[in-house]
């Protein structure tokens, strides 16, 4: 019976609780919710302090409600020893918490809480920036947050608050880092001190601020620290391209990136991001080849610093290398750089020359041990290394550049051309610099390949001797005239020099006369030898004495001869000039362009192709348009390539005349086998295919069922 009463009573109590819960809910919906809704929210949101106050008021209202609703329960179910009472209390509290939680899930509250937390975190950041802001300020803020925390505790909505706080600091820290540290590479703060600074910030104000708001746990600090590291890596990955551009000023930035870059994921991301940046910002036709090369050099150095093994470098440099290989003037730029030629078109890569000078001698020593058998510190390649990754010599970018192409021949050819030009441009037979360069290059390419260059240098040395002999007044044979001291010649061994442009030029009579005397004297000195003059090569010092000014120039012979003609009379037409000089019109025009640009000649306005000497300087209205890029006196490599292709074509033609149809690999092996070494055939199948495709397009060949045949 007693059990039945208790049961009934319990049933009654349950019903009472259910009723009470329902009542509380409807009361809260009717009175509580409107009370915490703030009609002025949009207005106050601009003011952070009032946001704090509103938030506090909302929470206070909720706390009041909490206490009010809780009050009846706490004495109806007051018996702590009664299990049913305890359960009822818990149930009611759950229901209440759920209710309040729903109330707090309101958008406005979320927004305000976010703003509040963010405001305090920002204050932490500012605090770090400016130590002058006194600690009282921080204490005040912490006290305020502590109040909020108390209310949160009462309402038992810590979970919600924690989520908000976490969301905010996940947003805040990356933003803070990118604002504070983005695009700063030069300063030391990117490395060790940066980490210290950040640690101070995290362990100091931020942790204090966050741990006031939420339950403190041990992992908080380490989690914050991880977050910071992650942000820094991301920042570094995004900025890698710029870091490389500003290398070596950006070394500190690399230091910290190296510290943070640990996971495979980040490494992969770095590679992709960097490659994308390269494609977007560098590897397009708007970039100068020299810029790409110097960027490549910086890339090599930067990535070697980042990861001495070179796995990342290997990956990121692939696309750059592939692109460089497709560029036509890559070889030229590299060679000019190595020889420290300053050329407006190829840009300045003299760094290469310095590197060449400093790295000399290390090359051959390293080459012996390619497999690293004798390396006691050998470790396997990292897991993300590409299958064909080979550990290259540390930061040796000359080697890297040379390995762009399968064979070094392309470089050797270009070196010969550049060196020939350099030697021909010399005036005093001073070849110390060239000899030094040549010796350095020999270390790279080996003696035998640069044999021609040796001969060229020797030619110049010999020329110096012969020239001084010719000018020696004691050797003047009776009855002959001495050669004027202004004429100096270089005697070249034709076979060893690159092909010259064999174009003629009519020199002024006085000069011809001197050249003949020179030849005569030469034939006496070196009996049975005769000089063949290359009149287009060389340089002339010219002094122009005009009515109102005197001008000095160092120009090519054709330009000098041209201006000499204007000594006779002051106007010429283009055709007259080209006939007198024995030059084609294009070259004549180019020479004219030079003088017009220097305000010595002008084109007659009334009559085209008529040129007048400007005895008196006048304001020139329009400058000439023809580029007067210094013409190379020897065949450039491109011209040589065209020439070679002409040879290959006659072979292909002969081949297919006699053998009706051939597949490409047979043609390739024929060419490889049959073309003498002196001419050389170094194309690969793909290049040959390109060439044959052009021939097919020109209807010289046809491509039928896998074989090429002559088009009849």
């Amino acid at each position, binding site marked *: 019976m007693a059990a039945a009463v208790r049961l009934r009573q319990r049933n009654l109590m349950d019903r009472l609780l259910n009723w009470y819960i329902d009542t509380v809910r409807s009361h809260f919906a009717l009175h509580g919710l409107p009370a915490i809704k703030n009609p002025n929210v949009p207005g106050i949101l601009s003011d952070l302090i009032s946001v704090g106050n509103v938030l506090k008021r909302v929470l206070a209202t909720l706390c009041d409600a909490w206490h009010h609703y809780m009050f009846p329960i706490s004495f109806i179910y007051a018996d702590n020893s009664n299990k049913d009472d305890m359960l009822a209390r818990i149930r009611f509290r759950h229901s209440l918490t759920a209710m309040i939680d729903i109330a707090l899930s309101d958008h406005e509250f979320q927004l305000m809480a976010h703003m509040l937390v963010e405001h305090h975190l920002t204050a932490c950041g500012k605090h770090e920036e400016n130590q002058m802001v006194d600690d009282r300020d921080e204490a005040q803020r912490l006290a305020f947050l502590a109040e909020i925390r108390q209310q949160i505790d009462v309402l038992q909505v810590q979970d919600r608050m924690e989520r908000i706080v976490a969301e905010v600091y996940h947003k805040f820290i990356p933003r803070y880092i990118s604002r504070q540290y983005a695009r700063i590479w030069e300063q030391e703060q990117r490395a060790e001190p940066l980490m210290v600074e950040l640690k101070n910030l995290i362990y100091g104000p931020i942790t204090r601020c966050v741990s006031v708001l939420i339950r403190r746990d041990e992992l908080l600090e380490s989690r914050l620290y991880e977050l910071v590291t992650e942000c820094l890596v991301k920042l570094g990955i995004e900025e890698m391209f710029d870091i490389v551009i500003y290398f070596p000023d950006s070394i500190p930035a690399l230091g910290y990136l190296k510290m943070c870059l640990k996971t495979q994921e980040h490494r992969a991301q770095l590679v992709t991001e960097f490659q994308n940046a390269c494609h977007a910002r560098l590897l397009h036709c708007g970039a100068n080849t020299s810029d790409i090369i110097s960027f490549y050099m910086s890339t090599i150095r930067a990535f070697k610093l980042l990861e001495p093994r070179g796995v990342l470098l290997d990956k990121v440099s692939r696309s750059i290398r592939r692109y460089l290989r497709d560029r036509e003037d890559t070889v030229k730029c590299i060679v000019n750089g190595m020889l420290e030629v300053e050329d407006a078109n190829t840009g300045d890569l003299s760094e290469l020359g310095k590197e060449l000078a400093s790295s000399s001698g290390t090359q051959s020593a390293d080459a012996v041990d390619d497999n690293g058998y004798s390396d006691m510190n050998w470790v396997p390649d990292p897991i993300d290394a590409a299958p064909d990754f080979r550990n290259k010599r540390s930061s040796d970018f000359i080697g890297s550049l040379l390995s762009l192409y399968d064979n070094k021949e392309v470089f050797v050819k270009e070196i010969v051309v550049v060196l020939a030009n350099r030697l021909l441009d010399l005036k005093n037979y001073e070849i110390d610099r060239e000899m030094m360069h040549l010796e350095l290059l020999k270390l790279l390419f080996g003696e035998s390949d640069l044999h021609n260059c040796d001969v060229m240098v020797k030619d110049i040395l010999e020329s110096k001797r012969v020239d001084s002999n010719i000018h020696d007044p004691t050797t003047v044979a009776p009855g002959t005239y001495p050669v004027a001291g202004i004429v100096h010649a270089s005697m070249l061994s034709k076979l060893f020099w690159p092909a010259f442009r064999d174009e003629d030029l009519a020199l002024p009579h006085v000069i011809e006369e001197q050249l003949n005397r020179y030849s005569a004297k030469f034939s006496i000195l070196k009996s049975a030898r005769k000089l063949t003059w290359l009149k287009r090569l060389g340089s002339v010092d010219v002094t122009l004495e005009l009515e109102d000014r005197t001008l000095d120039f160092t120009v090519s012979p054709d330009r000098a001869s041209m201006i000499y003609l204007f000594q006779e009379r002051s106007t010429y037409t283009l055709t007259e000039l080209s006939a007198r000089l024995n030059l084609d019109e294009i070259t004549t025009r180019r020479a004219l362009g030079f003088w017009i640009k220097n305000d010595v000649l002008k084109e007659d306005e009334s009559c085209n192709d008529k040129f007048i000497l400007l005895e008196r300087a006048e304001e020139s209205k329009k400058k000439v348009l023809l580029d007067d890029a210094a013409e190379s006196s020897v065949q450039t490599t491109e011209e040589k390539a065209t020439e070679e292709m002409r*040879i290959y074509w*006659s*072979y292909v*033609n*002969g*081949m297919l*005349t*006699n*053998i*009706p149809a051939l597949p490409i690999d*047979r043609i390739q*092996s*024929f060419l*490889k*086998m*049959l*073309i*003498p070494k002196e*001419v050389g055939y170094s194309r690969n199948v793909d290049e040959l295919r390109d060439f044959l495709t052009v021939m097919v397009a020109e209807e010289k060949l046809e491509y039928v069922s896998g074989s090429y045949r002559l088009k009849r």
Partner: protein
Amino acid sequence: MDSQNTTPTTFSSHKMQDAPTAMADSHSVTKRLQSELMQLMMSNVPGISAFPVSDSNLCQWTGTISGPEGTFYEGLTYKISMTFPPNYPYHAPVIRFVSPMWHPNVDMSGNICLDILKEKWSAIYNVQTILLSLQSLLGEPNNASPLNAQAADLWDGNPAEYKRLMMTHYKDIGEINDE
């Protein structure tokens, strides 16, 4: 002329006995043929052409000769084969017409009677001169020592019949290649 025609054994006889130098000799043949090919390719004389049959053996060539203008053979092309001996250029290459050739100095199997390929061979001749000689032989046969007597007779006697018979033998180079 005789001294050019014989292998210069007088001053290199000791060489000929060593095995290694035999190789060096074959190398020099290759080199010589290579440079002759280069010369031929570069000079690009119309109507004559020749090329090695395979890249592994430079001593076997195939050639093409077009009949010179103003002769019976004008507008026709003939295929020949050239085989160079290992001691070339001290010995003449063996040359045959691969295309059927109806000509006073060529027999039915393509063998050629030309003095410079036989007793008058000299090391100063090369592929290009041989081809040019063959081409001119088409227009100016040596009817005094014919291999094809009928052709020699008709050459002067009955040009129309000569042309007719010659054409019955002619095969276009495309057909020969297809065989």
